[in-house]
């Protein structure tokens, strides 16, 4: 029940995403009166939910790496801060996206809880904020050229072209909604994934919804409600702000937007590129507003920038910088209030210590640990302090630092029958065989997560990570984090 209350801020965020970002998909079509609002809203809602449930996982994994919000009240604030920032910016008339806001809000949480921000992931996300509009501009330009040539060659009459454009807009809009759901659901529900109490459910034994998918389904519904209730006005005004668009330009713009969002959310494409030894596109939640703005500017450049209202573009650009900052501040301040005034636990402190077990593991990896006397045996209250101490050591490479960090993370657990009972066993999720493996460990205590991982891996190969099987590994990690959650000492 409490979880549902905390989830409400995520739903608020979903609603504002629906009201705001969804209008990017159909805004130009509805604004130019090519598609009726009702058609657009229904089509958009349905495909957002489908996209969120079927392929929402890719981008949310990246967001999870940025910062793992580990207490439900914290997740509540993070989503809340992001939602308020988006709402504020919308009121001011800037097309911002939940992507920028949520990243800012998570960083705010990281600062507050003393967790480390994974700068590699952060830079990956920020780079896509530049790459996404640029890519979108190029795609829009190319598509527009192709469309223009096709129309010149095929010479459809005005009314046929009109109806083809309408069908095109609806089709591309549906695809865009699907991609938006797949890519942006991570923003709405991503922070709740680590704290979700849902277990996997199987529907008539035909298909299975993982706990994440259930969460995404609820989020998708919230977005759909946003679309149906509040997007009408935004849809009518979007697209006119930067430059006036003809229906054909609108088609090119929306197609480019949809393709870009799809590229940054598709696990299938990633697997394909990986399989052929090609560089992959990072699966990152990108901003649909950035994609749209990029595409519109791309078409504007086709006319040498004439007709673009650069002042509007400048305003939008700076709002993209301001939004994450506002969200971070808002998140930090709200967390402070919630923690100190309402005495809610906004994060679970994660302590670090190089115990003798951790030391053995680190040494087995061949990492030189000279001058570690200063930190071994000492306990650090959070990742930040530990990282600071670790930084004083010499000759340690960044990836070695990461290894030491995971090795030293303390998460005391005990395998008792009582706690095992609380794990959701289900033939599709954690099978009978896996359950038996866990029972074999009864009575064992662990200080670090990796100790449990290793103990399980020793019992059966099913608990081992596999090379080049990203999906399997991610699934296994999900199961393990569910198990940690249940076996953890309650006061932790």
């Amino acid at each position, binding site marked *: 029940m409490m979880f549902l209350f905390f989830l409400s801020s995520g739903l608020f965020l979903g609603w504002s995403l629906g009201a705001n970002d969804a209008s990017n998909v159909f805004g130009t079509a509805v604004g*130019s*009166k*090519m598609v*009726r609002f009702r058609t657009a809203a229904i089509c958009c809602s349905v495909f957002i939910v489908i996209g969120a449930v079927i392929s929402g996982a890719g981008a949310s994994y990246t967001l999870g790496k940025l910062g793992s919000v580990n207490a439900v009240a914290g997740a509540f604030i993070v989503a809340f801060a992001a939602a308020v920032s988006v709402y504020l910016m919308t009121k001011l008339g800037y097309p911002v996206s939940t992507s920028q806001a949520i990243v800012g809000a998570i960083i705010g949480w990281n600062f507050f809880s003393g967790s480390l921000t994974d700068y590699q992931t952060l830079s990956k996300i920020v780079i896509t904020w530049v790459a996404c509009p640029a890519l979108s501009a190029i795609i829009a330009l190319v598509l*527009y050229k192709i*469309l*223009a040539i096709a*129309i*010149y060659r095929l*010479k459809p*009459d*005005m*009314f*046929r072209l*009109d*109806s083809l454009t309408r069908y095109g807009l609806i089709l591309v809009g549906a695809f865009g909604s699907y991609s938006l759901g797949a890519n942006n659901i991570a923003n709405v529900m991503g922070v709740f994934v680590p704290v979700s109490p849902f277990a996997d459910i199987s529907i008539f034994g035909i298909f299975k919804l993982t706990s994440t998918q259930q969460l995404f389904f609820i989020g998708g519904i919230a977005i759909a409600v946003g679309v149906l209730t509040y997007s009408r006005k935004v849809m009518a005004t979007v697209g006119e702000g930067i430059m006036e668009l*003809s*229906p*054909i330009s609108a088609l090119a713009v929306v197609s480019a937007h949809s393709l870009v969002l799809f590229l940054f959310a598709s696990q299938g494409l990633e697997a394909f590129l990986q399989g052929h030894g090609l560089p992959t596109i990072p699966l990152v939640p990108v901003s649909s507003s950035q994609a749209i703005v990029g595409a519109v500017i791309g078409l504007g450049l086709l006319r040498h920038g004439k007709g673009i209202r650069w002042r509007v573009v400048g305003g939008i650009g700076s709002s993209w910088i301001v939004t994450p900052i506002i969200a971070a501040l808002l998140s930090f301040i709200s967390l402070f209030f919630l923690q100190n005034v309402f005495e809610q636990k906004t994060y679970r402190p994660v302590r670090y210590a190089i115990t003798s077990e951790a030391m053995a593991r680190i040494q087995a990896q061949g990492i030189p640990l000279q001058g570690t006397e200063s930190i071994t045996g000492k306990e650090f209250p959070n990742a930040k302090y530990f990282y600071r101490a670790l930084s004083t050591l010499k000759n340690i490479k960044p990836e070695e630092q990461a290894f030491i960090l995971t090795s030293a993370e303390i998460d005391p657990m005990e395998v008792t029958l009582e706690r095992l009972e609380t794990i959701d066993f289900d033939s599709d999720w954690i099978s009978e065989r896996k359950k038996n493996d866990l029972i074999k460990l009864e009575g064992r205590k662990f200080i670090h997560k990796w100790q449990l991982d290793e103990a399980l891996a020793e019992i059966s190969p099913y608990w081992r990570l596999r090379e080049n099987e990203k999906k399997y590994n991610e699934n296994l990690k999900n199961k393990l984090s569910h198990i940690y959650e249940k076996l953890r000492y309650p006061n932790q």
Partner: protein
Amino acid sequence: MEFRILKKRLDVGREFDVFLDKVSEAGLLFKTGVEAYLSDNIDSFEKKIEDIIETEHDGDALRRDLEETLYVQTLIPESRGDVLELLENMDALLDRFKGALWKFNIERPQVIKELNDDFRELTGIVVEAVEAIVRSSRAFFKDLSSVADHIHKVPYWESQSDKIASKLQQTIFRQEGFSLSEKLQLRDFVKHIDKIADRAEDVSDKLRIYVLKRSL
């Protein structure tokens, strides 16, 4: 349901074609009507009058239907204003043909044989000007890039029409034995017919801009 709408949209294209046929037909009726009047074939002339009235009725009905369809089905939103204006203007040309023929019927002016050839030439040129704008309009709906092949002919015919109208008026006013009222009446006819070509040119100027707006 969607496919019904698609079919309906294609019907709209056909309806425009039929409407433009009516404008073109009105031109031909006008030309043959004037020819019949000049050769004193009054029966045939009166028949042409009946025909052109019918054509004008059909044109009006089509225009109203098209205007309604464009709005009700929110077709071609980006060019709807332009298309409606084009429709009105083409209908005005049709009306002018009918009006000019009616004028002959009402006033029955005395046209002496010396003026016949010039009158024939004038009506022929005016009808050509309208034909050119009809062809340009068809191209506007079907193939934007070929509008240029037809539209340049409109100003050409218009200037030809101006030349022959001036010549005709000069001849009229230098006629001996015509009263001033007769001269003024004939001049009025010439100007009335010449005006059709002027209007066709105005329409072509606007059409040029519609084309620019739609070109990719």
